[in-house]
Each structure stands twice: as structure tokens, then as C-alpha cells.
């Protein structure tokens, strides 16, 4: 039995294995993903992003506790950064969630960014698909803790939660710099700290000043104290309100189409590039081309045109392309 069949029968080990193969980019993983795809599209995806140490993992732990009491099954994808110097990573988000590790209704997977930008890993969307096929009702993605450029979660999740904390001084500036547009919900965590009220006011002004959103949704602000679980129930209510608003305004389909589009285009882009690079290795090497560009013996614009022409021509001739296996 293949991994996909085993996963659909509820085999946790097989699911974990496939996630590994996806993360390591093994060609066989695609074969399994193809078989799982018809079984996906049922889970609701929640993104949790925000500043490092703001309490994302602690919040996720408490959110899971409440969902579990409602009988929902949960998948968690927790992303931490890969060290650019060593290629290694310490994945520590689980520390705050370990009490759920032996709960059959919860599956937690830690991922490293492996050089991918955007706050998640290249593999995140496909790993969500595996959890979705496993039958998880809700999948929560915790992004790496950075303040900006985490926009990719917005193309991955149905509801994006942005977590901030009082007392940093320039929280609002940080949020303006990249998190404002992506937040469906704001959380002020560690709200027992001084400055929570002020931060809330500033956020509120910022939300009011922002250009109206196309979906007509105004992001609410929730104050939480995640270590004690305070405010988490209200936060979950906020998530379900956002979800209902997506459904009632018929925006959920559009959102799913956008998520699908981003994922599909990324896959296409990656495969096309691999295919082109694979062919280039057979003839002129990339390195040689780069040297020509550096020496101004060629220009990148013309070179890209030439490669594209040759690539398309050879595809038409051979009718199959690229390296690796082609499954259909």
C-alpha cells in the first residue's frame, strides 16, 4: 500500500513520512499528493503570525484546548527559521503545546523555513493538504516570528491572526510596515502589561484610517493573556465570526480560489524553473552563463529569451520534459 492509501486509512506514521518527503522535495511525494488532493478542501485554515516571542505558540496551545472541547480535530504546522549559516534549525514551538502531543485528535508538525521567505516553508501548503486529507477539521499555521514580509500566510489561511504585544515602543510602526493588510484579526497578547490600552487605541485608529477592505470586513482587536488562557474564548468567537462573514458574503469561494491560484502558480513556477535549469545543465552550465553576463559578453534579457525559445522548442519535439519522474 502506498503512503496516500495508508494516510486515508488513518495511518499517522505514513502521514508524517509523506510530510518529510514533501519537505525534502522527493519526486515520489508528488505522486502521493495527487492521490490525496481529491480528499482535501474540507479543513478550515487559521494563520497565526506576529512578532517573535509575542506568544503565538502559547495562544495556539490554548486555542487547541478549546477546539478540542468542541470535539474538533486539529492539525498544527509550526514554522521556525533555518540558520542561514549552518542550514540547521532549532524547532521549539512544540514546547508550549506538548500536552496535546498524545491526543489522537491533534497532529503537530514542526517545519524549518529552509531558506524560503514569507514566514512559512515552501512545503507548508502541501503539508496542510496532507493534514486536510487526514481529516483534520481545523489546521493552524504558526509562522516564524518576524514583524514584516510574512504576507504569504494570507495566501495560505482562511483567517489570519496577527499577534502583537504592548511595551515595545514602536509596535504600531512595525505593524504598519507589513502586517496591517494581512490581519483579519488583531491580538494584543500579554495584555496584563502596561500599554495595552494605548496600543489598542492606536491599532483602532490605524484600522479606521486604512483604506476600506474589498471584503468589507473590519478587523477586530482582542486582548489576551495567553499563559492564563484569558481572552482566548473571545478570540475563537472572533475567528468564527470572520468565517461566517466569508460565507455570508460569498467570499469564501473567492478566497479558496485565490489560495489555490497562489499555490498552483508557485508549483508551476518551481517546476518550470527546475525543468529549464535541468536542461541547461546538459549544455551550457549556469555558471558559464553567469560569467558571460558578468563579463558583459551577453545580457540577461536576451539570454532569458533564448533559453525560453529553446526550452519550448525541445518540449514540442520530445513532448515530455524536465528531469525526474513524470507521473500522471
Amino acid at each position: 500500500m502506498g503512503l496516500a492509501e495508508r494516510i486515508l486509512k488513518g495511518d499517522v506514521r505514513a502521514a508524517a513520512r509523506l510530510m518529510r518527503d514533501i519537505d525534502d522535495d522527493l519526486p515520489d511525494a508528488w505522486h502521493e499528493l495527487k492521490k490525496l488532493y481529491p480528499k482535501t478542501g474540507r479543513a478550515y485554515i487559521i494563520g497565526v503570525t506576529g512578532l517573535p516571542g509575542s506568544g503565538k505558540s502559547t495562544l495556539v496551545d490554548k486555542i487547541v484546548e478549546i477546539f478540542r472541547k468542541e470535539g474538533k480535530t486539529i492539525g498544527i504546522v509550526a514554522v521556525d527559521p533555518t540558520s542561514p549559516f549552518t542550514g540547521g534549525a532549532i524547532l521549539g514551538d512544540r514546547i508550549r503545546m506538548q500536552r496535546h502531543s498524545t491526543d489522537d485528535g491533534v497532529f503537530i508538525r514542526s517545519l524549518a523555513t529552509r531558506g524560503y521567505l514569507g514566514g512559512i516553508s515552501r512545503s507548508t501548503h502541501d503539508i496542510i493538504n496532507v493534514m486536510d486529507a487526514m481529516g483534520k477539521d481545523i489546521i493552524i499555521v504558526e509562522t516564524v516570528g518576524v514583524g514584516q514580509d510574512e504576507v504569504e500566510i494570507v495566501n495560505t489561511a482562511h483567517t489570519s491572526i496577527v499577534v502583537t504585544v504592548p511595551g515595545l515602543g514602536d509596535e504600531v510602526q512595525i505593524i504598519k510596515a507589513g502586517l496591517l493588510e494581512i490581519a483579519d484579526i488583531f491580538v494584543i497578547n500579554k495584555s496584563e502589561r502596561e500599554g495595552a490600552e494605548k496600543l489598542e487605541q492606536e491599532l483602532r485608529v490605524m484600522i479606521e484610517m486604512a483604506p476600506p477592505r474589498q471584503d468589507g470586513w473590519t478587523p477586530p482587536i482582542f486582548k489576551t493573556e495567553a499563559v492564563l488562557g484569558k481572552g482566548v474564548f473571545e478570540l475563537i468567537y472572533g475567528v468564527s465570526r470572520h468565517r461566517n462573514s466569508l460565507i455570508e458574503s460569498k467570499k469564501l469561494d473567492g478566497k479558496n480560489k485565490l489560495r489555490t491560484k497562489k499555490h498552483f502558480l508557485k508549483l508551476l513556477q518551481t517546476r518550470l524553473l527546475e525543468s529549464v535549469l535541468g536542461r541547461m545543465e546538459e549544455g551550457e552550465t549556469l555558471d558559464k552563463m553567469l560569467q558571460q553576463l558578468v563579463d558583459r559578453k551577453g545580457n540577461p534579457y536576451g539570454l532569458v529569451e533564448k533559453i525560453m525559445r529553446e526550452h519550448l522548442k525541445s518540449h514540442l519535439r520530445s513532448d515530455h520534459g524536465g528531469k525526474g519522474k513524470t507521473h500522471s
Partner: protein
Amino acid sequence: MSPKRKIRILIAKPGLDGHDRGARVIARGFRDAGFEVIYTGLHQTPEQIVATAIQEDVDVIGLSALSGAHDYLFPRITELLREEGADDITVIGGGIIPEEDIPELNKAGVKAIFTPGTRIEEAVAWVKGHVKLRG
């Protein structure tokens, strides 16, 4: 082996020890060797450790213990792994473990024990030499 394969290791601390400084140093050592280290903090039960290792699909579980409960906890973990059909995951251990306990632990399926004073490079080299990545 695909060039994108990376060794994944779970560094876990079973038992009731009050601090995890040593385990964190080890975690950093493996990270610096290019491994992906799943770190779960203090007071992990054998059940939690095994469930985590399976969900994270690690190649290796590195157990760290100071409290002297290794003679019960380490074999319990290898036993649970066998029950789950996951005994292809390599288990190693470290900490304050008397020399005379080591043969018994080896027999229980703990493949290597690193006693205090072992350099992290040695542990890294051992793992690289003993772990066969799939694919």
C-alpha cells in the same frame, strides 16, 4: 540520497530534572551541524516523546537525563517505539549515566550512550555515521 534530505533529531528530556541547560547546549550543537532539531523542553513522558518522534518523523531521538531515572525511562521509550512499529528510529542517550548501566541500556535498544565530557562533535559524527536517510 537527495541533496535536500536533512537529518531530523528530537532532543527530549524525560523525567523530573529541574533544568535543561545541558539539553539546550546539545540542541544547539546539532543545529550547528546542520540538523533540524525538534526541542520539546522539560518533563516529557515516554508517551509524549514517542508520539512527538512519530509526528515529526525524526531519524534520531536524543534523550538527556540527569536524575538517574534512565534505567526505567530509556527502555520504556524503546519499548513504546517497538509497540508503535517505529523502532527504526535510532535512540541515543546522554547525561549522568553510570558505566555499568550501559550494557543493559544497549540491550534495551539504546544504540549509544554519551557520558559527561563527550564532545558534541563526537555525538554529531556518530549520528552522521549511523543514520541512513530514506530515499
